[in-house]
């Protein structure tokens, strides 16, 4: 699809930018990456009234061109990189009419880059309601650019905006709003000469940001550095001067074009809601209540679709077994690839529901209040109020949660959040816990209403949060902060959630999860399948020979098949590895069979149940949970004749699953987010050591 016009959408957070993007493009959008960085790039197409087609690029919301987080840093590099295909022909700056002053700062910066601009004055309905009157003609005349009043949520003013986009000039017409050159005359002249630009603001921005811009050659960047020294340029001082000058311009502009009601409007709706939601008692009670409701819903609502997905895959596997000729290729496809895919897809319902909740909480403005309430506690352990969102997300899956840490501006806070998020009990641990708890914890009530199995499960969830806090506290002292931590955040007014935004977020996150986690899990599943299906030397032939003997002919064919499978697994490479690590895991109470399960669970934890099923010769996979349980219950240690799964072993095993980094997808996503192998390596190392030590202590105490 070729577009004749490229339009970039720029604006502050919470101004309705993504709503406008959705209205302009409909569902005609796709999410990709900006080249070289992992920042989501949303693009879509919009048909203009003159018959042309515009490509709309939604840039991350930002308060200024000076970036504070990774997402924000993309804005200037897209707008400034003039020789590449991303450079927009036109910028639509969306500003919130109810909060013009702060919104216009970004406009004045963008306008000074001298790319054609159209201003979309959003939330005009709310501005009218609160009695703000804007002289739009005068406003537009003073800026020198088209200003279109819209209300994106009501889709009003959109046709006028499309018209303005299609009739926009090819040359920038905006008025100068401040005297940029006066900020650093010598330096700006020097850089303009060096980089061959006639735009003083572009030159000034290069002085501030040249270290992070990929389109500059190292020689150019060094030269800018030298010029800065020569003119003793101080980045923060220059930025302060610039910001003050811009606000002076904005104050004059607003004085001439806007009239606000003088009388105080009384207490706003948002304020009244805040009094309850951030109340020192009710605030926390409500927050815990909302969390409990969320988890209850995630598990209750996802049970049925998860079963459907699992059954669908079992059906496909069954069909393929009939259709495909038996052989290693068919087995690889069916038991390796499709089984791996099933393990990924089955989590989609939980992830979609969790992100529906998170997106509702963010959309309404409640998440900002949670951040506000929790910041002090989180800061004590080295995190940040904004770490709350990824940690809550961690209860479903660490992969999308780690991706959502990008909103944390502070490097150290973000890294600690990434390091501890995988400790939170994710949904892949749930089948493991359910199986083991049912095995050793009696199913009866204590103190009338509390079920002991339920209590044990709750304890595992609480333990995971506590351990995440403790580990974060330790990292607080290990990591050296690069910059000072701060917490300056807008508390947006409460609004109703936008339902199609919620749906889009469910879709986006699920897709990201399938793509991110999917490829790793499938790859590891294939490797594990090979390890479990082939053995060293001619052991497998000998097994086949052994079971071909007449003595086995009288056996029930199903039992025979299971006996062969169990024997083969023990003699496979995976089995050999299980035996090899047995000395190391015996102090934790594990035998070689559990060792195999630990190895196969590296791809994904929930594989444990399936592996146990194979080891204990159960037909079908995870869906036969009760049968697996019975077999494990009656499993005896051949040397001592005692049951294998005692209370001590089961709890030791749960501790191991609670702390160990048995998730290849998380390793991959941590690498993707940090761009340094040392982070996932350190995470893997500390979690494995922690898992070993805690399991060891648990087993030795309970034995």
């Amino acid at each position, binding site marked *: 699809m070729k577009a004749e016009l490229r339009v970039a959408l720029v604006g502050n957070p919470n101004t309705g930018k993504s709503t406008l993007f959705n209205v302009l493009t409909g569902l005609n959008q796709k999410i990709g990456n900006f080249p070289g960085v992992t920042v989501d790039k949303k693009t879509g197409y919009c048909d203009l009234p003159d018959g042309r087609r515009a490509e709309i690029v939604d840039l991350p919301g930002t308060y200024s061109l000076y970036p504070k987080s990774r997402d924000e840093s993309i804005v200037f590099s897209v707008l400034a990189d003039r020789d590449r295909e991303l450079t927009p022909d036109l910028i639509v700056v969306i500003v919130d009419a109810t909060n013009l002053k*702060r919104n216009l700062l970004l406009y004045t910066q963008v306008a000074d880059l001298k790319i054609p601009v159209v201003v979309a004055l959003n939330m005009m309905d709310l501005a009218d309601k609160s009695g703000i009157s804007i002289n739009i003609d005068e406003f537009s005349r003073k800026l020198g650019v088209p200003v279109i009043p819209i209300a994106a949520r009501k889709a009003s003013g959109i046709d006028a905006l499309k018209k303005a986009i299609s009739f926009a000039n090819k040359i920038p017409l905006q008025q100068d709003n401040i005297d940029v050159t006066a900020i650093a005359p010598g330096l700006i002249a020097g850089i303009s000469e060096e980089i061959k630009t006639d735009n003083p603001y572009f030159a000034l921005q290069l002085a501030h940001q040249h270290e992070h811009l990929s389109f500059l050659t190292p020689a150019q960047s060094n030269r800018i550095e030298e010029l800065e020294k020569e003119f003793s340029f101080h980045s923060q001082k220059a930025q302060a001067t610039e910001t*003050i000058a811009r606000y002076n311009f904005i104050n004059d502009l607003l004085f001439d074009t806007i009239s606000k009601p003088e009388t105080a409007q009384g207490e706003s709706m948002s304020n009244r809601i805040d009094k309850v939601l951030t109340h020192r008692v009710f605030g926390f009670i409500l927050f815990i209540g909302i969390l409990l409701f969320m988890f209850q819903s995630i598990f209750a609502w996802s049970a049925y679709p998860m079963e459907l997905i699992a059954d669908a895959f079992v059906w496909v596997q069954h069909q393929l077994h009939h259709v495909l000729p038996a052989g290693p290729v068919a087995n690889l496809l069916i038991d390796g690839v499709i089984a791996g895919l099933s393990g990924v897809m089955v989590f989609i319902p939980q992830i979609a529901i969790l992100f529906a909740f998170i997106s509702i909480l963010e959309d309404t403005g409640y998440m900002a209040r949670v951040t506000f309430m929790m910041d002090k506690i989180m800061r004590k352990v080295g995190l940040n109020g904004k770490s709350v969102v990824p940690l809550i997300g961690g209860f479903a899956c660490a992969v999308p949660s780690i991706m959502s840490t990008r909103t944390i501006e502070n490097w150290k806070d973000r890294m600690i959040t990434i390091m501890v998020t995988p400790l939170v009990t994710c949904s892949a641990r749930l089948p493991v816990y359910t199986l083991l708890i049912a095995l050793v914890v009696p199913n009866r009530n204590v103190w009338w209403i509390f079920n002991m199995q339920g209590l044990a499960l709750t304890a595992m969830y609480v333990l995971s949060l506590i351990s995440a806090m403790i580990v974060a506290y330790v990292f607080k002292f290990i990591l050296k902060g690069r910059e000072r931590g701060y917490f300056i955040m807008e508390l947006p007014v409460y609004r109703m959630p936008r339902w199609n935004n919620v749906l889009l977020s469910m879709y986006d996150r699920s897709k990201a999860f399938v793509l991110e986690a999917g490829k790793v899990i499938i790859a590891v599943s294939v490797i594990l399948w090979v390890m479990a299906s082939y053995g060293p030397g001619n052991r497998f032939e000998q097994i086949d020979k052994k079971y071909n003997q007449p003595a086995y002919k009288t056996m029930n064919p199903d039992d025979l098949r299971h006996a062969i499978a169990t024997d083969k697994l023990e003699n496979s490479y995976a089995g050999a590895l299980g035996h090899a690590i047995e000395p190391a895991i015996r102090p934790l109470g594990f035998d070689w069979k559990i060792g195999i399960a630990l190895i196969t669970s590296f791809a994904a934890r929930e594989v444990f149940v399936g592996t146990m099923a194979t080891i204990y010769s159960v037909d079908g996979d995870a869906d036969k949970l009760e049968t697996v349980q019975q077999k494990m219950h009656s499993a005896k240690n051949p040397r001592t004749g005692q049951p294998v799964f005692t209370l001590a072993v089961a709890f030791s095993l749960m501790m191991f699953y609670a702390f160990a980094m048995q998730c290849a997808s998380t390793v991959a996503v941590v690498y993707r987010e940090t761009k340094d192998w040392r982070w996932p390596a350190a995470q893997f190392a500390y979690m494995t050591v922690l898992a070993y030590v805690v399991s060891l202590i648990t087993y030795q105490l309970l034995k």
Partner: protein
Amino acid sequence: MKLSQLEVGKTGVVKEFTDLEMSVKLMEMGCLPGEEIMVERIAPLGDPIAINVSGYQLSLRKREASTIILHS
């Protein structure tokens, strides 16, 4: 007087900043010299605080608020 000392519901006018790095971030968000600030509420645990500035609500930690000096 520092902004961190202002009581809930009280208003003050920004005079200057004691920290350059913080001032740049605060000014971007509309906290400029001459601007009127009202403390709207304090978080349940005593920190951060929420202020009303340039017509919207901003939250910041007390430590950051202590870098803002108000006209007495």
